Structures are given as structure tokens and as C-alpha cells.
């Protein structure tokens, strides 16, 4: 999802940069105010941890592999402000040291993956956790669904930026990005939930966001962040949310591009072209396809939570796991 240089025009790059810089500044102020000094090294190490975890590949069907993005994982483990800082640091290092993601697109990339992804994920997680109570099954369900939502939200924002720049048409960008990332989001949900379940089972005290009162998000910081995300999405995505241009449709049909459009995603989407075949391709069927995808993710998250929640009789394993990890650390 890293946008390279040359894909965004000046207005999109500047808008992304301004919103990202403001969001990062708010997060820095929030961390400086609330995080005690002894956790400052942890934020740096968490950034290195997210980077290292992104390098671990998971096999997906057909020889392809995916990896963790880690925004929701960071938000759940460290709290939202620290997660914004951690994900921004990861993106800045990837951009400066590894040329992964463009310099001029850094603002847009930070907005997608360091503001939208952790904050949408955190808000979903908190709302679901309040709704389902404080049990471990509810927490795992909230984790899984939040990871899926954050991945898809970041992808839609990225599609909006590409479309606003005139690089990729919205009618191609949205199905390609959202469709593929609805699948990637399932993988992200699975990994994030497995990791959170393991951490909770072996070292529950490490979930900083739930332990340190200072690390709980402060209303003001969260409010400004929420406003920034809403503003950014309004700038990047809202222009396309209604009024579908159908000039391209005609060109695509006459030039025979339609097959290529459907074949372009690396993974075949379950609802090809983000539209249900019988209904034709219009806003209504796009909405239905999106709703169906969301429903599937919801059910998957619920099943995952039931499978991974600790049984009442499994208490001994937690103690053993904790001892083993403590003695191995040197």
C-alpha cells in the first residue's frame, strides 16, 4: 500500500502532508504528556518490532504470501497515540532508508497507514469491546474485526488519493484496492488476533494500553485525531462517493479492457469487480458487495474469537507459558 513518488499530484501530496504532520504532532504531544519516560525506549523498540514483524511472510493460497501490517496490533498493545508515532516512524524509516514509499507521498502514506489504520482500528476495537463486555472472547472478536476494518479503511483512503491525483481512475482504484484488501484484511485479522491471544495468555501485563492509566487515550487527543481522519477521508474519498462517472465504462467496453480490470488483482476476489454479477455494476451493487464482505469479516472474527478464547480449564498453560518466556529472556 506504499504509494511511490510520482503517483500523486501536488494538491493531494500537500493535503496529505499537512494532515499527516498535524496528526503526528498531536500524537507526539499526547505521548510526551502521558507516557512516562521509562516507556520511551519501548516506543522505539515497538517500531523496530513492527518493522521486523512485517518481514515475516505468511503463506497464502497459490504461492503468494502476505505479511502483518501491525497498525491495530500497535494500537492495542501501546494505545492509539503511541501507535500513530510507531507507525509513522516505521514509514519514515522505510522511506528514507529503503526507498519503500515516496518522499513526496510520505504525507499520504502516513495518513493512510499511521493515522487511518491505527485510529479506525482503535475506535472499532474500543466500541466493540464496550459492547461485548470485558471477557477475553469479546476482546479477541473486537481485535479481529478492528484489524479487518482498519486494513480496508486504509486501502479505501489510498484509492481515493490515487484517484484524486488522476493517476488511477476511481472506478478501477476502489474495486482493486478495497477488493484485494478485504482479503488481506482477513489475513491481518487472523495474525493480529493470534498474536494478541498469545500475548494475553503468556504476559497479560504487557498490554500497556490497559495497564497504565496515563496511556489510556485522552479525550482531547483522540477527538483531534478523529477529526483529522474524518477531514482527510472527506478530502480524499468523499468527492467520489457519489456521482459515478460512466464515461470510462464505455471506453472500457469498446476497448475490451473489462476483462483485464477483473483479472488485475493478484488474488481473485470472491465478488469479482466488487459487484454482484447479476445486479450490474452500479452504486447499489457496490454497496451490497461491500456489505457482504463486511458481514463475512464479522462472522470470521466471531468464529476466530470462539476458537481462540481460552477455555476455563486452560489456566495452567498460561502460567507455564509465562515462566518459559521469562526464563528464556537473557
Amino acid at each position, binding site marked *: 500500500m506504499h504509494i511511490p513518488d510520482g503517483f500523486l499530484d501536488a494538491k493531494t501530496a500537500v493535503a496529505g502532508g499537512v494532515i499527516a504532520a498535524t496528526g503526528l504532532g498531536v500524537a507526539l504531544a499526547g505521548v510526551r504528556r502521558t507516557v512516562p519516560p521509562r516507556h520511551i525506549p519501548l516506543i522505539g523498540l515497538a517500531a523496530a518490532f513492527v518493522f521486523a514483524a512485517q518481514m515475516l511472510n505468511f503463506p497464502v493460497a497459490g504461492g503468494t504470501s502476505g505479511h502483518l501490517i501491525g497498525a491495530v496490533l500497535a494500537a492495542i498493545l501501546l494505545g492509539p497515540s503511541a501507535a500513530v508515532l510507531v507507525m509513522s516512524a516505521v514509514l519514515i524509516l522505510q522511506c528514507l532508508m529503503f526507498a519503500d514509499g515516496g518522499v*513526496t507521498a510520505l504525507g499520504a502514506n502516513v495518513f493512510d497507514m499511521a493515522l487511518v489504520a491505527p485510529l479506525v482500528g482503535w475506535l472499532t476495537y474500543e466500541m466493540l469491546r464496550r459492547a461485548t463486555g470485558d471477557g477475553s472472547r469479546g476482546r479477541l472478536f473486537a481485535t479481529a474485526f478492528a484489524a479487518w476494518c482498519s486494513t480496508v479503511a486504509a486501502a479505501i483512503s489510498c484509492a481515493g488519493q490515487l484517484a484524486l491525483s488522476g493517476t488511477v481512475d476511481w472506478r478501477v482504484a476502489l474495486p482493486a484496492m478495497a477488493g484485494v484488501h478485504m482479503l488481506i484484511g482477513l489475513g491481518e485479522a487472523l495474525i493480529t488476533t493470534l498474536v494478541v491471544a498469545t500475548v494475553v495468555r503468556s504476559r497479560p501485563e504487557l498490554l500497556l494500553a490497559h495497564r497504565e492509566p496515563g496511556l489510556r487515550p485522552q479525550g482531547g487527543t483522540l477527538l483531534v485525531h478523529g477529526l483529522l481522519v474524518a477531514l482527510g477521508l472527506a478530502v480524499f474519498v468523499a468527492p467520489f462517493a457519489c456521482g459515478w462517472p460512466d*464515461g470510462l465504462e464505455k471506453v472500457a467496453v469498446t476497448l475490451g479492457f473489462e476483462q*483485464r480490470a477483473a483479472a488485475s488483482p493478484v488474488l481473485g476476489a470472491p465478488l469479482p469487480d466488487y459487484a454482484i454479477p447479476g445486479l450490474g455494476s452500479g452504486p447499489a451493487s457496490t454497496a451490497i458487495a461491500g456489505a457482504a464482505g463486511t458481514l463475512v469479516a464479522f462472522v470470521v472474527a466471531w468464529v476466530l474469537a470462539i476458537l481462540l478464547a481460552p477455555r476455563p480449564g486452560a489456566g495452567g498453560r498460561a502460567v507455564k507459558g509465562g515462566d518459559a518466556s521469562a526464563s528464556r529472556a537473557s
Partner: protein
Amino acid sequence: MHRALLEPYQHRSSPVHQLPAALKCAGALAFVFSVVLLPRASWPAYAAGGAALLAVAALSRVPARRLGARLLLVEPFALGVALLSLLQPDGARVFAATLTKSTLCLFAMVLLAATTRFSDILRVLWSARVPALLVTTLALMHRYLFVLVDEMARMQRARRGRTFTRGRVSLWHSSATVIAHLFVRSSERAERIYSAMCARGWRT
């Protein structure tokens, strides 16, 4: 693959390596911004920029093979996004222009990373008044990135040495466990690092 990815800096004693880091950063930034802001069809300017980059690359005496390998590592991402731009009216021209632009910018950033230590770039950020907390986070991240990647590789090797089945389900489960324990070890390491920092007189 990890070695090529994690070692961008190529040690040489060339004139390019000895330039001040601030100058190189400013030059790379100016180059990237001007390439991005050029109109789509300015092919002579692209050719001139490419020639300038090749001249700098030759001056820096960085092995062409390493530069090429790093470019090839990051190019697929650009190519993937660029392919989407084919699917619109006049797509081929947009495709060629964006791909050329992004390749030039990638080349400039790969050259910058190959001739400048990251600690020098951090010093430039510091003197450019980037917030101290962000620079500290970046410095800690860069310092411990290699430690954590090695630690993860060790855990994976240990896991491979102990599991005989290679089912996809068990692979996902054990890889997620590796990530979880990497986090546990990182937070324990962070506590030791904080004590060490305090012992050496660190103040916030």
C-alpha cells in the same frame, strides 16, 4: 533477500560519500520534488535527470549490481500501482510517465541511502528541528531493528528445528507465536535499555 534489503549503505571513500549529509539530503529532496512536479510529457527533462543520477552513481563507485538489486526490490510496488493506471482513457501515456517518474525518484533515494549513513541522516533531521521524540524513536528503531530481525530469525530457526509438520494452519499459528514472543522480548529489552540509558545519564 534480507541482506540486500537491510544493508543500504555501501562503504566507499568516494567524493560523493564525503559530501556533507545535509547537502546530499537536500539534493535528493530537490531532485525528487522537481521530478514529481514536472509535467507528465517532459521526456528530455527525465533523460537529463537520469543521466545526472547515472553520473553520481558512477562517481560514488557503489557496485552497480547492488544498486540494481535494491532498485529491483522496490520497483515491483511501483509497477503494481502503475499497472492500475493503464485502465483509463489515455492510460498508456499516464503509465509510462508515472513509471519513469517513480523510477527516477527511487533511484535517487537508493543512491542517497547507499552513500549516506542513517545516523548522519538522523543528525540532519535533528538539526532541521524535527521533534526530539520522533528523532529518538527513529534512532532507537534503527539501532535495534537489526537485533530484532536477528532474534526473529533465531526463533524461526528454533521452531523449524522442532516441528516436523509443515501444515499451513500450524505454520500460521507458530509464526504468530514467534511475533508475539518477539514483542514480549522487545518490551523486556526496552526495560533493560531504559536502565542502561539512565545509568549513562540520560534525561528526557
